[in-house]
């Protein structure tokens, strides 16, 4: 049986955010500006979706000053990694079922 998929992750921009963070080594985040260029999002849009993912416990946001400049880093939590892995498995399952008939 196909489990209900994750509505939070499935939204296109959030999916891109989670995919980008998932490709990083564990416990290593991406800077906000880097994430913005990788996902092709605008500042406001990206901020809003990171907030949603953060509320779900899928990402953690760290703010720091680097060379006197504010720097925001987004890190995927272990719960986020697990949820993303489940979501990818669900997507594959849907395709396998369709191909299997």
């Amino acid at each position, binding site marked *: 049986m196909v489990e209900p998929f994750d509505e939070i992750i*499935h939204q296109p921009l959030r*999916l891109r955010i989670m995919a980008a963070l998932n490709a990083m080594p564990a416990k290593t985040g991406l800077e906000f500006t*880097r994430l913005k260029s990788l*996902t092709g999002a605008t500042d406001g849009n990206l901020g809003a979706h990171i907030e949603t993912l953060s509320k779900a416990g899928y990402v953690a946001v760290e703010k720091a000053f680097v060379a006197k400049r504010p720097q925001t880093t987004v890190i995927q939590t272990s719960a986020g990694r697990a949820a993303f892995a489940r979501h990818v498995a669900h997507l594959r399952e849907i395709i396998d079922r369709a*191909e299997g008939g």
Partner: protein
Amino acid sequence: MILQSKEAASALDEIDAISRKVRQSIVYQRASFSLILWGVLVFIGYLVTFFAPRHSFYAWIAVYVLGVAGSVAIGVFDRLEQVRKSFDWRLLSALLLFFGFGFLCTLTLGDFAPRALSAFWPIYFMLPFAIVGLWAARAFVFIGVSVMVLTLIGFFFAGPWFNLWMAFVNGGGLLLAGLWMRRA
């Protein structure tokens, strides 16, 4: 919400595309510091060879020692590898094998004139760089082949300006490539 297989396939494609981009950006980020380091060192090495050829031997020994030590240090302090902040013996071994073979060719097996030596090292350096690029990142192939071609052009056509040409082509090329990769 029920997802169709077409949507699922499209989502997986999206994930693959982003993952590839991130992996490539990690490779670029890691390579950029080493490229900048080698670019600066090689630039200085060629300038010394051009302006003070008598000191070039010691200058190049210093370039190689600092380059290898710096590359190993960059590997150790690589901020992306927070989990594994240990000494990378494989990197040091690879560099020692690489330079060992280079010196074996130039000092023992071959009879290289100074000009040929100045052309050999950048071509030898860029060859594995370009080959690795076929798997790691296409930009490496472009940078490697460009430096090799420009080196050969300088070797045949730059006349007495060859080492100055190499300072900008090889040193400057690596430096610019490293700076570009930091932004890519």
